[in-house]
C-alpha cells in the first residue's frame, strides 16, 4: 500500500520549479505591463526646453499677441502641458501645430499658414518691393538722362537760343 507521501516522495525539486515558474511569470507580467505602459505613453517625457521650442511658435489663444512659451496664465500652463502630453504620445512638431490649429483656429500660429488668402502676406512684400525697385530704377535712369524743363537749359537748347538771339540782333542791325 502506498501512502500519499509514499506515492509522491518529497525531494524539494518540484517546489523549486514552482518558485522559478512563479518568478518567471511575475517577471513576464512585469515586463508585459511595463511594455504595455510604455506602449501607451509612446516615449520618454519631453524636457521643458523641448516643450518651449514648440510653444514659442504658438500664440496664447486667450491673451492676444503673447507667445505660449512665456504666457503666465494658468490656461497657458495647461496648453504647455498639452504640448508635453502630445510629444509623449509621439506627435511630431507639425502634428502638434495642426492639432492646435484644429482646436483653436489659425490665430494660434505665429505666422499665418501659407494657403488661400494668407498667401497675400507672403507675396505682397516682395511684389511691392520689386515694383518699387523697378520704378526707382527707371526713375533714376530717366533722371540721369533727361533734363528738367524750365530750370536749366541744355547746351543744345542754349545754343539754339543763342543762335536765335544772334539772328534777331543781326536783323535789328
Amino acid at each position, binding site marked *: 500500500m502506498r501512502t500519499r507521501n509514499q506515492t509522491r516522495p518529497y525531494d524539494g525539486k518540484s517546489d523549486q520549479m514552482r518558485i522559478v515558474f512563479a518568478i518567471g511569470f511575475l517577471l513576464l507580467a512585469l515586463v508585459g505591463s511595463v511594455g504595455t505602459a510604455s506602449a501607451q505613453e509612446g516615449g520618454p517625457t519631453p524636457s*521643458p*526646453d523641448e516643450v*518651449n521650442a514648440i510653444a514659442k*511658435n504658438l*500664440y496664447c489663444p486667450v*491673451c*492676444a*499677441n*503673447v*507667445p505660449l512659451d*512665456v504666457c*503666465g*496664465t494658468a490656461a497657458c*500652463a495647461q496648453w504647455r502641458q498639452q504640448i508635453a502630453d502630445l510629444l509623449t504620445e509621439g506627435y511630431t512638431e507639425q502634428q502638434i501645430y495642426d492639432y492646435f490649429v484644429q482646436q483653436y*483656429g*489659425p*490665430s*494660434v*500660429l*505665429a*505666422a*499665418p499658414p501659407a494657403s*488661400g*488668402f*494668407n498667401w*497675400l*502676406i507672403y507675396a*505682397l*512684400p516682395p511684389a*511691392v*518691393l520689386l515694383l*518699387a*525697385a523697378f520704378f*526707382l530704377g527707371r526713375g*533714376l535712369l530717366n*533722371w*540721369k538722362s*533727361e*533734363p*528738367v524743363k524750365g*530750370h*536749366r537749359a541744355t547746351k543744345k537748347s542754349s545754343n539754339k537760343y543763342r543762335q536765335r538771339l544772334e539772328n534777331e540782333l543781326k536783323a535789328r542791325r
Partner: protein
Amino acid sequence: MIADLGFFALLTAFLLAVYGCAAVAMGLWRKETAWVSSARMAMLLSFPLLTISALTLVYSLVNLDFNLEYVASATSRSMPLYLRATALWGGQAGSLLFWSWLMSAFASAVMLRDWRRDRDLQPWVIIVCLVTLGFFLSLILFFENPFTRLWQGVTGTVWSALWQPNAAQPYFPIDGNGLNPLLRHPGMVIHPPMLYLGFVSFVIPFAFAIAALVTGRSDDRWIRVTRRWTLVAWLFLSLGLLLGSRWAYDVLGWGGYWGWDPVEIAAFMPWLSGTAFLHSVMIQEKRGLFKQWNMLLIILTYDLVIFGTFLTRSGVLSSVHAFAQSAIGPMFFIFISATLAISLFLLSRRWRQLRSETQMTSLLSREALFLLNNFIFVSILVICFLGVIFPLASEIITGQQVTVGPIYYEKATGPLWAALLLLMGVAPLSAWRASTARTLGRSIWKPLAISLVLLLLLVSTGIGNPGALLGLWLCAFVFLVTAYEFWRGARARSRTRKENLAVAFWGLIARNRRRYGGYIIHLGVVLIAIGIIGIEFFQQETQGSLAVGERLDLGGYSLEYESLAEFQTADGRLVDRAVVNLYQGDQFLRPLYPRRDYYFESRQPMNIPGLYSTIESDVYLRLVDWEPVSAQSATFKVYLNPLVNWVWIGGLVFILGTLVAAWPERELIEVAEPARFRERAAEARG
C-alpha cells in the same frame, strides 16, 4: 466742483478750436488779417484752458475723487502718489486729454514764433493745428469724457453720466479699480509722454507742409522752418520707442525687448516715415530735389501718427498695449481718411509746381544713395503696415483670425536692415552731385579693408552664423567709416587752424552740428545693431524645475535655488519672490530675485525677472511656477542675452546725436538762403 471747472475749460477749448477754424475761414474770405489774429489768439488760449482741464483731472486723481468714473477706473487707494498723478495717461479718456494738452502746447509755441516772413502760411498752419486739436477734443467731449460721474438710482443701479439724472444721487465707490499693473513701472510713467510728444510734434511740419501746398509756395521754406520741430518730434518718438523697449524687457518677462506687437509697430511706423523724411529733406535743401516726395512723406507721417493713436486707442487690434477699447474707432477712421484725401488732393494740385529744380547726375551721388535709403525705409514701413492690417483684413474678408508674429517681420525686414547699414557706411563717403565708382572707391577702401580684417578675426573666434557675421561686419564697416569721417574732418581742421586734435574735433562738431550730430546718430545705430545681433543670433535659454539647493546651468552660469517667500504689500500685491544664487563657474556673483506679483484689484499676475547685467550679456531669470505651500521646488526659465545692453547704450548715443543735430547753429542763423543757391551764385561768378 473742481471737475466741473475742468469740464468747462475743456468745452471752452473745443469751442475756441471751432471758432478759430471759422475765424481763419472768414479772414481768408474777407482778406482781413484781424480774423486770422483772432484765430491765433484762440489757438494760444486753448493751451491755458487745457492746462486747467488736465490739472483738475490730476487733482481729482491724486485726491481719489471716485465719483469720477475715470478716477475710479484708473486709480485706487493703494496706489502711490506718483502713479495716481500719472494715471492721467493711464486710461483712454485721460490719455486723449493729455494728447490734446501736448498738442495745444506745441501749437501755441508755434503761434509765438516770428511770422513776418511767413504771413501767408500762418492761417493754414493755424487751421491744421486747430482741426487736429478740435478732432481730439470732440472725441473727449462726446465719446471719452474723463469728467463723467457715477450716479446711483433709487433701485441701487449705478451708471455714469455727465449730468445728474432724475432721482439719482452721486455715487462714490469705496475704492477704485487701480491702474493696469503693466503700467505701474517707472518706464511706463515716462514712455507714453515721450511717445505722445513725438506724435504731436509731427503735426507741426505737416501743418506747414499743408500751408505751403495751399499757398503754392514751392520753395523749401516750410522745411527750413520746421527742421528743428521735425528733429524734436523724431527725438521724442525715438525716446518713446527706446523707453517702451526697456519697459517690455523689465516688465513683460519674456526675455526680450521688442515683440513686434501691433501697437509697438503703430509707434514705429511714423518713426520710419519720419526718418525717411529727415534724410530726404536734406536733398531738397541741398539740391532742390524730391519736393513731391517730401510732401508725400510728411503727409504719410502725420496720418501714421493718427493711425498709431487710433490703433492704441480704438482697440481694433487687441494686444498687451491696447488695454482700452471704445467706440471712437470709426471717428478715427473717418478723420484719417479725410485728412489723407484732402492732403493728397492738395498735393496733386501742386504736383507740377513741386518738380525737382535740378537733375540727378550720378547713380552713386549722395542724393541717389539717400533716395535708396528712403526706398528701404518705406519698404520696411510697407511690410510693417501689411503685417499690422493683415489680421484685420483676414478677419473681414475670410472671417478667420490670424496672427502675424515676429517671424514674419524678422524675415521680411532683416535683409532691408542690412542694406540700410550698408548704405549708412557708403553714403557719408559719396559726394553730392558727381560721384563715380572710382572716387567712392578711393575714399572707401581704407575702412573697407580694416572691416574685412575684423571680419576675418570674427571668423577666427569661431562665429559661424553667416547672418551674424554679415551683421557684425556691417557694424564694423559703418563704425569705421563714421570714425574715419570724424578723423578726416578733425585732422583737416587741426592743420588749417593750427589747433590740437581734441580742440579741432570739438570745433568740428560745434561748427557743423547737423552733419556730425547725424554721424553720432549713426554710431548709436551701430551700437543698437550690435545689441540686436547679439540677442537675435546668440540668445540661449533653458527651463528647469529645481529643488532647494539644486542648480540649473546655462552658458557658463549656474543658478542655485535657495528659497521662495510669499508676502503681501501695502499697494495691494501678493508677491511670490524666489531667491536664486548666481554663479559663474564656481564663483558666486550675486542673488537674483525673480518674482510674480499678483494684483488683487485687477486679478492680474505679472512676472518680474531677476536680472544680472554686464556689458557682455544679461542673465535674465523668470519664475515660472513653484510648489505652493512648502516651496521646496520651483520652475525657472533662464535666458542668456548676449550684448543686449548695447541696445540701451546705443540708444543713449542716438539721443545725444539727435540733440547735437537739433541744437541751433550760428551759421544757420546767419545764412538766409539755401546752400544750393549760394553754390549756384558761386558757379555763376565763375
